[in-house]
């Protein structure tokens, strides 16, 4: 349970970190809640770790013209407890509170979790519902892409060699929007068997906007647009919600493992979609 030898750098500026990462041999350490256990088991044996913890540019949560920018190295606990996020983007704060356990939330980071791209991670459900964008930087580039373009496949992202996540951008929630994240958790790991995030806005007694993100069900998290389309224009009655939630798993090849069969996962996706939407509807003004 001891990792293989490796070089360790802990740069204090973004430029320095980008220079090291551009070299190609270094693996980024962004909290280490997935990477360090893999290294201890010797499933991963990077030659060089670059710890991003001491870089001020990757920290912090700030609001600017209707958007909130969250630095990649912001810990789950900081997301969960941020006064700004709790007031202006409560869905993400709620999702962060569901991650792992206290130790994981104190060490693990938003950028680290996204870059790892675990198909059952909590954040992507909410980030899909929020239509979040991811800003990627390298020594020679700076681009901002939609979450759906960033997540490519299981454990696979669009980040290229030399690139790292600088920040994640979410919208400031409009007043009156109801949000909820509901999760069936696998008790041993804390990962979602399925997790569903919902954002609902109402106008004139009807649902005028619906966003639904799902994690844990298939090879990668996704935005459930068929569910959204079935919700918009309805009054959001329990029957409306049940009907819309029933297609949460439609067209997705569900995962199967010792914790949950594919059929059970798909069924739970509908159940938890129903719960998340119901809670969001009841919170929407």
């Amino acid at each position, binding site marked *: 349970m001891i990792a293989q030898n490796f070089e360790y750098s802990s740069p204090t500026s973004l430029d320095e970190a980008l220079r090291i990462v551009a070299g190609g041999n270094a*693996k980024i350490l962004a909290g280490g809640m*997935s*990477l360090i*256990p*893999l*290294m201890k*088991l*010797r*499933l*991963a*044996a*990077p030659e060089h770790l670059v710890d991003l913890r001491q870089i001020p540019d990757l920290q912090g949560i700030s609001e600017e013209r209707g958007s909130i920018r969250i630095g990649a190295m912001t810990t789950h606990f900081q997301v969960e407890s941020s006064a700004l996020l709790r007031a202006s983007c409560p869905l993400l704060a709620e999702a962060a509170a569901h991650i792992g356990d206290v130790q994981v939330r104190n060490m693990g980071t938003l950028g680290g979790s996204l870059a*790892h*791209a*675990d*198909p*059952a991670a909590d954040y992507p459900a909410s980030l899909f519902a929020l239509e979040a964008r991811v800003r990627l930087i390298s020594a020679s580039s700076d681009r901002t892409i939609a979450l759906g373009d960033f997540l490519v*496949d*299981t*454990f*696979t992202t669009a980040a290229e060699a030399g690139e790292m996540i600088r920040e994640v951008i979410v919208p400031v929630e409009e007043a009156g929007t109801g949000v909820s994240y509901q999760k069936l958790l*696998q008790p041993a*790991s804390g*990962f979602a068997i399925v997790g569903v995030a919902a954002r609902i806005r109402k106008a004139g007694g009807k649902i005028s906007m619906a966003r639904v993100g799902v994690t844990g069900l*298939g*090879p990668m998290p996704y935005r459930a647009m068929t569910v959204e389309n079935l919700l918009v224009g309805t009054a959001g009655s329990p029957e409306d919600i049940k009907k819309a939630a029933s297609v949460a798993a439609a067209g997705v*090849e569900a*995962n*199967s*493992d*010792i*914790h949950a069969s594919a059929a059970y996962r798909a069924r739970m996706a509908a159940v938890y979609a129903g719960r998340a939407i119901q809670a969001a509807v009841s919170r929407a003004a």
Partner: protein
Amino acid sequence: MKIGGAYQLPLGRDRAYSLLQDPAILAGCIPGCDGLVRTADHEYDMKMKLALASISGLFEGKVRITEQKEPRSFRLGVEGKGKIGFMKGEGLLQLADKDGGTEVSYEGDVHVGGTIAAVGQRLLDTTAKMMIKRFFDKLAEIAGQ
């Protein structure tokens, strides 16, 4: 773990079948495969570098093709062993004409053991599916060239 699925290839059935028997093509399609070395008829030694998320490891093993019924079906066996664990998979691949191309359906069993299985149980199914998809995506890509 049972696996199964189908994949549509934009190729005629005879061509799809012969590509799937070609060690150079197989080597190019098996994710991380460094090459296949023939040891007997339809039997090859394989070296494979797995790199997924932060996990990386070298596997050494064999690829074996049996029960060939050209151009309808054959059985493909893949096994590998490395420091981080071992895997052994066997499946029946069937080829059928469909929509002007060929549908390859597969059904089989995969066993994964060692450290990687002990800690990765939650993700084995997803990962196996992804690797199979990459295999066929690559095959379709090579075939299109």
